């Protein structure tokens, strides 16, 4: 009998993956080794984290009285900037469009957004790169950002704005500056930003003319002097040390504070920034409200929350926790076709899956706004691609989306017995997870226990 050889081929291929060195980490290391460049991408954090999904409403029953869902009125009107401005902003719904630049977005996408916002009675916001004549024309209420780069920033547009938003940071990259890669620095974008065409623009992360909160106070007064104290001044930052930042911003003289949680999106920044900086939106709201309460500024300084607000339930929960309004960026892009498989060109609705594949993604996994090759023509400066979005169709869809959000918001408010969405309160909420209970500071469902505060 021949001697048996030792077995060298395993019975089956191993499926034992490492937790620490899983496929994502391997891909990260392989790509870093191959290219010597870190990853840049668009949209927001994709990691799992506590969100508004971890909260539920305690709607009315016997101990509370609901409003008739389809008959009784529920007010959604929202006023922002009542502290110092002669002309506060009045919105029909507490849902705004977050700041997105012409440059990051195509002119047609900006136009669709402006038209929808105007029809809805809400606002839009400019971005890094200044105000275009088209967006001023299409948006009834337009908020003008004052960013560290000051690209295209000028007193004429400042005076045309309905509010000014001093941007200190954003949720996707708190502490980082804007970025627009060469593919998107078209001739017009370059001209607006006084940059050479096609360069990789990496904006400053600090303002050029002030550094700390004391200077900011004077800067805000300068903006007020230039605009005759007419329009509200917002201060926006990414959610990190929220409580301290809110207090400093209030002290600096803000009318409105905008806080962008870590799920907030961007058109381009380092992946490491998107996933590893800032705190979740649900934690940020609570800290901001705490700061306003401690300063006795609730109702005097308004609070806008953004970063991963997707649904009517998200809006309702943010407002119940104390926000006066929310701002949406990524959801707006998605309403305009982002990550959908066909182009919303108003005509043929051609399937564009192959263009996603060319970017190495599928509809549903795209985050390639930084490439300028958006398959649905939303975040591009390429004229042919931009034609894939029809502004009228885009506006129609965005209007639908925001209408759904405000109807859902009112549905929940009525069920909580509130005739005004702004009357919702943290007491209307409980948490499904210990983490969410601790962050939002509402009890874990079925208990009176708030981690850190006690109760049973």
């Amino acid at each position, binding site marked *: 009998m021949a001697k048996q050889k030792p077995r060298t081929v395993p019975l089956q291929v191993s499926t034992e993956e490492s937790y620490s060195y899983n496929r994502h980490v391997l891909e990260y290391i392989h790509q870093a080794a191959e290219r010597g460049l870190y990853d840049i991408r668009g949209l927001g954090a994709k990691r799992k984290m506590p969100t508004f999904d971890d909260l539920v409403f305690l709607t009315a029953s016997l101990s509370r009285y609901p409003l008739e869902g389809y008959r009784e009125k529920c007010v959604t009107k929202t006023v922002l900037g009542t502290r110092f401005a002669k002309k506060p902003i009045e919105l029909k719904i507490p849902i705004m469009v977050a700041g997105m630049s012409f440059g990051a977005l195509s002119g047609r996408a900006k136009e669709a957004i402006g038209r929808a916002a105007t029809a809805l009675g809400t606002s839009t916001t400019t971005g890094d790169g200044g105000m275009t004549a088209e967006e001023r024309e299409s948006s009834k209420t337009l908020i003008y950002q004052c960013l560290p780069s*000051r690209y295209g920033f000028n*007193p004429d547009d400042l005076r045309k704005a309905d509010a000014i938003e001093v941007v200190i940071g954003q949720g996707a990259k708190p502490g980082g500056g804007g970025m627009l890669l060469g593919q998107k620095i078209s001739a017009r974008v370059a001209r607006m930003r006084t940059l050479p065409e096609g360069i990789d623009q990496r904006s400053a992360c600090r303002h*050029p003319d002030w550094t700390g909160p004391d200077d900011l106070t*004077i800067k805000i007064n300068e903006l007020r002097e230039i605009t*005759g104290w007419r329009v509200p001044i917002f201060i926006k930052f990414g959610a990190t040390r929220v409580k301290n930042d809110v207090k400093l911003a209030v002290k600096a003289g803000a009318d409105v504070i905008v806080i962008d949680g870590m799920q907030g999106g961007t058109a381009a920044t380092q992946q490491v920034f998107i996933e590893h900086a800032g705190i979740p939106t649900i934690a940020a709201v609570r800290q901001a409200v705490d700061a306003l309460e401690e300063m006795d500024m609730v109702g005097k300084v308004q609070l806008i929350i953004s970063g991963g607000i997707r649904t009517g339930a998200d809006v309702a929960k943010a407002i119940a926790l104390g926000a006066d309004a929310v701002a949406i960026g990524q959801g707006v892009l998605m309403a305009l076709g982002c990550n959908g498989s066909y182009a919303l060109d108003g005509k043929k609705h051609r399937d564009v899956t192959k263009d996603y594949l060319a970017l190495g993604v599928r509809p549903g996994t795209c985050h390639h706004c930084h490439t300028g090759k958006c398959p649905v023509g939303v975040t591009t400066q390429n004229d042919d691609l931009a034609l894939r979005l029809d502004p009228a169709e885009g506006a129609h869809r965005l209007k639908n989306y925001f209408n759904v959000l405000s109807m859902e918001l009112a549905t929940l408010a009525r069920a909580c017995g509130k005739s005004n969405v702004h009357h919702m309160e943290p007491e209307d909420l409980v948490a499904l997870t210990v983490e969410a209970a601790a962050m939002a500071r509402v009890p874990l469902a079925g208990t009176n226990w708030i981690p850190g505060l006690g109760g049973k």
Partner: protein
Amino acid sequence: MASLTRSREKQQQVVRLDQEKLSVREINEYLHHRVRDGARVEIANPDGQHNLAVGLDADIDVDILGHAGYYIAGMNKRARVTIHGSVGWSVGENIMSGSVRVKGNASECAAASGHGGLVVVEGDASSRCGISMKGVDIVVGGSVGHVSAFMAQAGTLVVCGDAGPALGDSLYEAVIYVRGKVHSLGADAREEALGKTDHAKLTDLLGKAGIDLNPKDFKRIASARKLYHWNSDHQDDY
């Protein structure tokens, strides 16, 4: 020329606003809405106040008679503002056109993000002079502090004295001329030979600033354009 004569004709009618009697708000309100082109306005007793004469958009002359605070003549258009004293941070910030002249010294961030027009500091300017400039021309009679012309995109910075550390860091298309010593250049800034156009530009700007110096004595600093595109080979330059 037309505007020069006009303002000269009206020179007799000087309006005097006294900051001890009027608030900054009232002074700016007057300058925004109640002056006609060609007018001359004096602001007496500025007393270190911030935000004087900001957001002007008129063909007028404004004289601030003393020291003033932050953001003086910020976002200026068309007006010619002269400060007969020293100023705090960010004088003439984001200036679009017209001119701002500081007879004394200017603190940090002079002419920050200026898009056009002319800013003259007869004394010294502090750090970050001309930061993020986007087309403004700046002439400093004395020296400038560190990181001046940081990320300067367009326009010209003329320094008749010395420049502090990291001059012109991350420069784009703006050009810097320095007559004295440069402590150090920032990332992507390099010294280049003076050409004919540099001569003409310097002669013009020194003339406008009323400074009598020889353009030949200046060095030119401009962008090496190595950082225009993003890649890891220049990692150490940042």
